């Protein structure tokens, strides 16, 4: 029940989305060759992180994001393990309820050349360091782009997200990142769905047209009721005078 409309919306919006991305590509007026090239090659930007006891951000490289621009942008991540020092530091930061921050440089995915892709500034996000520790470094990072392919935001959550204060005994758990990565473009918001509605209305009227019972006239449909009512009236009219008369007589 709840799923039904969701599903509908999703289907419609994906349909629209595909249609509209087509449209965007046409409008961009980029040369086809270049587009293909970028689609195949991809390019990489650093993913940096910072976790300090005094909460003053010092970003270091955590890994490299390989972005593939194109019709359906995709992203993959290759990242290093946490070193021994980092692990202890992360635990220390978690103990004082510090933050674990990440940042990526602003990039423009649709640009042809590397120089055009890079833009000034960074996009930053954070989680609590304790959540990072307690989830054993399993985080979900999503990159958000806008319509024209600019990276506008990054977000990070851990799974599970809560800080319960459970100690992470095993150092090995804090070695390897278990990252789920995704890149998201804006969805197309649906407009009013007049076509479907009209279609439905037409179907209804057709159904009405086909159903012979609906076409019958008022009298044809309810003749028995009218007849019954008439008889009842007649009977009650004819029955009353004798009753009254009888009483008068007595």
């Amino acid at each position: 029940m709840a799923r039904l409309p969701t599903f509908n919306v999703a289907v419609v919006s994906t349909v629209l989305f595909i249609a509209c991305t087509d449209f965007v590509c046409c409008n961009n007026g980029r040369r086809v060759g270049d587009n293909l090239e970028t689609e195949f090659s991809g390019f990489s930007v650093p993913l940096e992180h910072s976790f300090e006891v005094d909460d003053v951000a010092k970003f270091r490289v955590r890994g490299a994001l390989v972005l593939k621009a194109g019709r359906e942008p995709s992203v993959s991540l290759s990242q290093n393990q946490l070193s021994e020092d980092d692990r202890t530091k992360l635990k220390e930061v978690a103990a004082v309820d510090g933050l674990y921050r990440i940042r990526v440089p602003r990039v423009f995915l649709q640009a042809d050349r590397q120089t055009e892709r890079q833009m000034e500034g960074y996009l930053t996000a954070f989680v609590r360091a304790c959540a990072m520790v307690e989830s054993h470094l399993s985080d979900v990072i999503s990159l958000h782009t806008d319509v024209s392919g600019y990276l506008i935001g990054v977000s990070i959550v851990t799974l599970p997200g809560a800080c319960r204060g459970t100690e992470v005994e095993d150092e090995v758990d804090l070695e390897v990142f278990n990252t789920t990565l995704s890149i998201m473009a804006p969805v197309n918001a649906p407009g009013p769905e007049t076509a479907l509605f009209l279609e439905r209305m037409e179907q209804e009227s057709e159904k009405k047209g086909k159903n012979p019972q609906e076409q019958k006239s008022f009298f044809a449909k309810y003749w028995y009721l009218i007849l019954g009512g008439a008889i009842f009236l007649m009977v009650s009219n004819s029955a009353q005078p004798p009753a009254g008369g009888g009483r008068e007589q007595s």
Partner: protein
Amino acid sequence: MAKLILLWLKCVVLWAIVEAVFEDQVGKFDWRQQYVGKVRFSHFDTHVQSSKKVLVATERNVFAALNTRTGELFWRHVDKTGSEGNIDALLQHGQDAVLVVGNGRLLRSWEINVGGLNWEVVLDSGSFQSACLVGQQDMVKHVAVLKKTAISVHYLSNGHQKWIENLPETETVDYQAVYSDGNGEVYVLGVVPHSHIAIVVYSMEDGEIIKQMSVEAPWLYNIQASCVVVGQGMLTCVDSAGVSFYMLDLHLQLQMTQVPLQSLALEVDPGFHPVLLSHQPNPARQPLSEFFLQLGPDHYQLLQLNNGQIAAMRDFKPALLVSFATTGEKTVAAVMSPKNKTACSVNLFSAETGRRLLDTTLIVNMDPNGGKPEKLYVQAFLKKDDSVGYRAMVQTEDHTLTFIQQPGRVMWTREEALSDVVTMEMVDLPLTGTQAELEGEFGKKAAIQDGLMSMVMKRLSSQLILLQAWIGHLWKLFYDARKPRSQVKNDVTIENLSRDEFNLQKMMVMVTASGKLFGIDSKTGGILWRHYLHNVPPNAAFKLMVQRTTAHFPHPPQCTLLIKDKDTGLGTLHVFNPIFGKKSHVTPPALPQPILQSLMLPLMDQDYAKVLLLVDDQYKVSAFPSTKNVLQQLQEMAASIFFYLVDSSQGRLSGYRLRTDLSTEQIWEVIIPPEVQKIVSVKGKRPNEHVHSQGRVMGDRSVLYKYLNPNLLAVVTESTDLHQERSFIGILLIDGVTGRIIHEAIQRKARGPVHVVHSENWVVYEYWSTKSRRNEFSVIELYEGMELYNSTVFSSLDRPHAPQVLQQSYIFPSSISTMEATLTEKGITSRHLLIGLPSGGILSLPKMFLDPRRPEIVSEQSREENLIPYAPELLIRTEWFINYNQTVSRVRGIYTAPSGLESTCLVVAYGLDIYQTRVYPSKQFDVLKDDYDYMLISSVLFALFFATMISKRLAEVKLLNRAWR
């Protein structure tokens, strides 16, 4: 399908019944006040001696006639906003008022008795300079309009153009004024700055140039600011640099004669530009030969032109304002001079002689909470003994109009500042004195200090007070009951303000653009207090916050107004008591740095004042109040205080966290490239909003939980590309704490202005669809799903799963001005959207119609859930207009506040007018109806009671009898 239609019809019929006001309820719960705005031109209607009209044309593009006896509107015409409807000139002759509108675009004539339009003509393009009425042989039949390059003359009777002539040498000459004195000629005066005056004389008959002259005037650059025509066509100018008069006879036009002011023993205040004021009582005659010269801010001189010679008649110092007025053949000069700190006096002087007229003093008491007088309009009339009487209309800096009669009786005041309300809050009224006393007596402190006996005594005394109050109340009821209903007046004054049973009456604190604050009783609309803030910059932004409510007796309630200069970002705080309007004795901190953000925390200091945090451009945070207690609390809470900043010019949204030393650190950043789209609005949720149910029950009895994130922000962007195929609007839902983008959607082929309402788990926005050329509504709802992640508490830091997003759009048949959602005490009542339409209606649209779960195909379960089948068009039903025929012009904002009754929401719509009403989104489920039959139910009860008594007795008797048998 037939069933479906039936259901649909049922719904529609049901809703049709729900809304609407009964005829006898009109005006019972609602009121409307109509305003005109700051007066720019004003004329008294003088063509009939007994006329009660004053015509006003205002800066809000309104032309209206006010009743001089009551101050009410006779009629009002509201033109377009902006420069298109700007009123450039108002000329009045007899029953006609001629307006030049929209920088000389339109010429209109109105009949002033009923306010009907006589005629309207579209003028040739060109920027407007000046206009005047043209008379001939004591008859005024034409109006002349001077534009930058042309002059046209129109008939007053029908607006037809008599002639139009292009002005000569328009490249060099700047024509500024037009003058006529009834001799069949029209004089057009132009100036070549710092060189010479150009005079063109046109014949009234056919527009032929009779004469064309230029006269040396190297000191002149603006005719209207420094010249007037006096007496027999003598152009008189004053030069501040040369400190002298220059005179030019328009009929002879030989040369300008210079008269040094010193020769008249006049001295101009240093740094003051002297101003001339003359008076032409009848456009068909010559102006008076007497005129005023303003020598300083409070210094005027009455002068007379006699045979080409200027003679000083009378010196007025100190004098704040002067004005001429004519009645019959007599012309008087009214002079307003300060009397003492709180009052001014107006006196009449004969214009011919300069002598003071006897018994013409009028005392104007100045409101200490108002502004200085700015303009004086005088209505003079002849008394029976042929002496001159008058009434005065004084306009002050705070846009107030006061109409005063001799000897100083204020007939009415109009607070025209209320035509431009910027923001408002509703504050609960305090308890009555007796109630407050009771509260105070059994406070915590008292109980500890006093012993048993004194407490008993206190209790007895307070019971006595209560008894006394009750008897008083009864007596009043009895006394009022004997009077006819119309005479019973419940005048609300500031003394007898008290909260009513259901908290339906509140204090509306309104902040206006002029910097005047008002306290208005929400039940009657009466203004209970006013306070004018001096030194408010003209482009200030205001934010009003309630720091302490009335719930903390004996601490007075406290409101704080943040006034921020939009250019410099510098702010000031005004702290006041919202019930009495008095400035609080609490001194607000000085704010030397520009303010970026202000936020109210739910923290309270020991005096129950909520803490206001101000973030300056160095990202330093200051707290108000900043007592030790507050700072300590802030230190403890710092790790959980987050805030966000928006820089729309750079498209930057950034989040900060408070550190214990009250510095801040940036923790997240989202940058939306401003080349592609610009941020137009960021909407959070209202902090006083309650959501009663955590989820929605589905048709199959499972629960769909709402995503209720209090930190969620709805960010709306508009594309910079405005081409109709490529323009779009973007909706971003961002968590304000973590900066996580929860949802990102774009509406293609759409354009602003976008109106957004963000509440509970939904966002509703309205936009213009460029593809289909219509207004559309879209609704986004967020759900957590079938199970709740953490049902006890919501934390933005611990909500890893993204919510489900549902969205649906609808067609709306009208454009809208503003939008707001209803708000109730506990959030049980269903929500409505209140939509202000440009037509002046306020529509109450059930949120039920904006529900993305409205099914396209009806199933058993959706019917079970009471979902309305999807229809792409939202209809406007006339019963949904909550203001029935009370049109609210130019609605700018709608404010909603909960009342003590869960069913009732208080609504205030403001714009040019103010309209207050109550709405009941789910009907009045917690109130007995007005026509509830108490008699019937009580008589039935009593009858039943007695029947049981009697039957019991009868049964006993019967039993006894049976026992004896």
